[in-house]
């Protein structure tokens, strides 16, 4: 009898183990990979509470966004590039490259690997490129959410997206001081596929935001972005709906096409650059209102001048409003963190430590963050002097560990 009971209990244990197994394995990976909707943006634009996202009139609009995105850009296993008026994708994205980066991990007979994004990027940046991969909550800084199309470390003016080279550089070099590693182990071809796929995810995310924005500003509750049944009933409105969607997509893509030719030229530094007088001039400028560096980076350049600001990604979560924030967190957003001005005493430069990298940072600012572009009144030579000063900061006495005082062992006794 005892044995019977044991068997029963054992059966129960086994049953629960099996269920646990299901939870762990079947959980999220078994169904086809899907892009997740940007519910945080929808919540911030369309409704006053998470509950309202489930209202039928909001739901149909969100389903429209999902279906239109799938129509234009495809799915994680089958990316697409739509035909758009006046847009030639080829210099920016090619479908065969996207197909190589997308889909499940594997390799073909020739040994060419595909599914590169899921092999190398997805754990942090997520299937959707929303920066919400499983490792994301444990990283500081959080992985980039591509869906705003904003990239920090680039060579183009504030308004424009990065060039291809900019993204290649990040993949090659990684980002110092963050969890983003270098991908020098990949071939140039593989990195090209990934650069294109990241661009594709960014554009897809931007179109999604633009569609939600269109709903929020121009459509009445329940009104559709595209209603296929209007084709016969109201052909004019139907045509207008299609045109609006096409225009939104084309407007999103065109700055990306423009960016490649808009790299900010970096002039050579002045003759006396990086001399003590150049460093002194940089130091003077650091505190002037012409450059205003010390306002945020602090008088000692420790990054302590402005420590309660947020970046654009975080501001969307209304971190100053606890009730709203709670709802955004429930939608999967990550706990907000302040954006801190760089501590310039450390000598860690996320966007690259070459003088040319620092020139771009100062000249054009850092998109999505409080770091502004230099005033048009700040000359290029002055920017070079600031760079000289900034590069000297990690080696200033104040930045070094306390000097060892020579001591006589006998005295210590």
């Amino acid at each position, binding site marked *: 009898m005892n044995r019977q009971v044991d068997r*029963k*209990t054992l059966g*129960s*244990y086994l*049953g*629960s183990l*099996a*269920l*646990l197994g*299901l*939870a*762990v394995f079947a*959980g*999220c990976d078994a*169904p086809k990979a899907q*892009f997740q*909707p940007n*519910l945080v943006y929808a*919540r911030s634009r369309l409704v006053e509470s*998470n509950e309202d996202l*489930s209202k039928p009139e909001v*739901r149909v609009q969100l389903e429209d966004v999902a*279906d239109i995105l*799938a*129509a*234009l850009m495809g*799915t994680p296993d089958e990316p697409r590039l739509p035909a758009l*008026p006046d847009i030639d994708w080829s210099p920016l994205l090619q479908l065969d490259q996207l197909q190589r980066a997308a889909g499940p991990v594997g390799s073909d007979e020739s040994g060419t690997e595909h599914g590169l994004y899921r092999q190398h990027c997805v754990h942090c940046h997520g299937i959707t490129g929303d920066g919400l991969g499983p490792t994301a909550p444990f990283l500081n800084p959080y992985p980039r959410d591509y869906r705003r*199309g904003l990239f920090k470390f680039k060579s183009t003016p*504030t*308004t424009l997206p990065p060039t291809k080279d900019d993204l290649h550089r990040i993949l090659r070099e990684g980002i110092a001081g963050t969890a983003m590693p270098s991908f020098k182990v990949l071939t140039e071809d593989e990195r090209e596929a990934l650069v294109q796929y990241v661009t594709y995810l960014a554009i897809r995310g931007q179109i999604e935001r*633009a569609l939600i*924005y269109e709903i929020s*500003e*121009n459509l009445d509750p329940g009104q559709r972005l*595209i209603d296929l049944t209007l084709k016969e009933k109201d052909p004019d409105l139907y045509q207008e709906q*299609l*045109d609006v*969607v*096409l225009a939104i997509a084309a*407007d999103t893509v065109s700055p990306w096409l423009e960016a490649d030719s808009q790299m900010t030229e970096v002039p050579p530094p002045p003759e006396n650059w990086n001399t003590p007088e150049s460093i002194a001039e940089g130091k003077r400028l650091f505190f*002037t*209102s*012409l450059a*205003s560096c010390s*306002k945020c980076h602090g008088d000692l350049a420790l990054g302590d001048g402005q420590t309660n*600001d947020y970046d*654009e990604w975080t501001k969307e979560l209304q971190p100053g409003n606890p009730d709203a924030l709670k*709802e955004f967190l*429930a*939608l*999967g957003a990550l706990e907000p963190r302040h954006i801190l001005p760089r501590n310039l005493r450390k000598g860690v430069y996320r966007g690259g430590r070459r003088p040319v990298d620092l020139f771009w940072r100062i000249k054009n*600012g850092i998109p999505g963050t*409080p770091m*502004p*572009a*230099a*005033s*048009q009144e*700040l000359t290029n030579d002055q920017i070079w002097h600031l760079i000289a000063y900034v590069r000297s900061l990690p080696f200033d006495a104040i930045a070094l560990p306390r000097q060892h005082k020579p001591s006589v062992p006998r005295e210590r006794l």
Partner: protein
Amino acid sequence: MRIRALVGSGCCVLGAAILAVAGCGPGAGPKIQVDLDRADAIRSALRRAAGAGEEEGGEEEVAEPTGFATLVGRIRFEGTVPAPKQLRVDKDVEVCRPGGRPVLSQEFVVNSENRGLKNVLIFVSSKIPSGDPKWEHESYLAQREALLTGDKAFDQKACRFLAHVYAMRSTQTLEIINSDPVGHNVKIDPPTTKVASTNVTVPANGGKATWKPGGESNVPVSVACNIHPWMSAYILPRDNPFFAVTDENGGFRIDYVPAGVELEFRVWQERIGFVSGSVTLNGQTIKLSKGRIKKVKLEPDQETSWEFVFTDALFD
């Protein structure tokens, strides 16, 4: 024995619970599923439309204006005026809080004498050909690509943007000035890629920067300064010139509005965004949805007056 069985089945329940919780997505939101068949149908429709656009292009005949009209008006507020929020000014206080006086939010400014509501935007939202002399009076055409400078510049003093709500044409260039003895940065983050973003340092004592929106938006874009985070303003960039911001008496005026054609106007206020709900227009109650006043047809060479009353119910 019973207890053991209970423990066993408890484990089962636990397992099931984990299965349910571990689920997939983040949780609280609705599950939005893609309908792949519908996506296919939309794809073919869009492909046809993209192709058609290239071939035909502007085949549609639109009605043309028969002249120009003037629109004037005033917005009055009725009801309890909410106490303005006090802003936290904690930096450069000698400049930003002159005399130590509290700095108040300009989100909702009502004139205490005539109850005029300041900083309300009212603009033509219909699609209108930009730069077309049939639609635009020559005084507008002359200013179409102007540099907005002098008294039209976007100035800041005592860590406030002097124009809290501002409107301009997307083809114009705005001069941004800093009349403070401390440095500012001006950060403009449009919610749409059609409008150029910017974030630029503006040096003290008359330092300048420029910004050209390049495209239009239906909602004003927000302007901020990261050095002084309490500073805020809004700029509406429009392709056409038919817009106004109410002054300290709640008054507005738009000259040379295309007459004899049906236009749509929209009304926006910072606190509530596009005005939705019942308002009184020239004594009649009308209901606005997303700030829209539809099918407005003005008589050429006439002056039309719109007297609005907004009540506190709108702002609840």
